[in-house]
């Protein structure tokens, strides 16, 4: 579920950070810059793990900040394909089920990946697994166990985003699409997968 990524970056330490120990100042700056952000093709950054190497600080002309090249490791949330994870059901709709882990929400189980013979109950707006005449409701907030089938990265940086037709505003948020930068497509089609209560006997 979690792994380590090695990253090299130039970290800027403002003069207000000079009173801290260097390692602390670097750690704080790295966490400020990376924590809870998605790196393309890397995953969701959680926190800095350790510093492998840090250069001397450089001060540029006309700028009081210290620039340090740091080689560090970051704790990354990036489940491997095939991994089994437990989470909670966040919402259901015609297309499938959304699951959340609390810190990561962009998990989607399309209807084709639900257990065989699962039907959508339009009245209650939940999916129901018809198992031997038993109706197993997939209620919201239930614990669910699922398998990661594929991962998708979507570059949300403004420069590469195609402009929407007819929209031409300098406000970048206006032509932003709501697509998540990192999302997982998962399945619960198999024995042992689905709500924990289905399998606890």
């Amino acid at each position, binding site marked *: *579920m*979690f*792994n*380590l*990524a*090695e*990253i*090299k*970056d*130039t970290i800027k330490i403002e003069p207000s950070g000079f*009173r*801290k120990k260097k390692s*602390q100042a670097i750690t*704080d700056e790295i*966490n*400020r810059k990376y*924590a*809870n*952000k998605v*790196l393309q*093709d*890397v*995953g969701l*950054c*959680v*926190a800095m*793990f350790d510093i492998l190497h840090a250069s001397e600080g450089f001060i540029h002309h006309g700028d009081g900040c210290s620039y340090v090249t740091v*080689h560090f*490791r970051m*704790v*990354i*949330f*990036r489940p*491997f394909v095939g*991994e*089994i994870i*437990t989470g909670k059901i966040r919402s259901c709709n015609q297309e499938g089920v959304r699951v959340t*882990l*609390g*810190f990561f929400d962009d998990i989607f189980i399309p209807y084709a990946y639900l257990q065989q013979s699962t039907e959508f109950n339009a009245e209650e707006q939940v999916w129901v697994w018809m198992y031997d005449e038993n109706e197993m409701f997939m209620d919201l907030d239930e614990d669910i*166990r699922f*398998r990661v089938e594929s991962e998708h990265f979507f570059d949300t940086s403004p420069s590469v985003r195609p402009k929407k037709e007819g929209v031409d505003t300098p406000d970048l948020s206006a032509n932003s699409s709501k697509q998540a930068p990192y999302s997982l497509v998962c399945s619960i089609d*198999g*024995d*042992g*997968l689905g709500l924990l209560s289905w*399998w*606890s*006997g």
Partner: protein
Amino acid sequence: MEIINANSGMLSNYEVLALLNDQKAQRQANEVAGTREVAENLRTVEFEVQKYLGASPCATQSPKQIAKLKEAFSKFNGESQQLMKVELLQILNLRPRSDVELTLVIEEFEQRFDVSSCPEILAIIRDALPRNDDPPAGEEDDE
């Protein structure tokens, strides 16, 4: 920014939780001295990950238990019975309690292990990673 290695090793949930707890404790110690303020984004992700992991089986694990589990599994020394790293990791993170959970995290379970060895493996897990919210022994064996 340069990504040198996007995946230089896997971490178990326990390690991540331990790191976050340490980091927070250390920070709180420093906060008393009033020298550090914490970025909002770090706080958010730290809180949410801690909450998620705190409710998962890794909350009661320790390095000793993990070493013990690894050792206990080394008795399955048939060639196909060696657990892959990811399988061991999944066992740690999910701590299977039933046959069906076990076969989920171990690939091709039936070909590599005997189905009858399920209770034995579950007992190893229960033994190496004790938790006090397990149903009383015996109940599970009936399943």
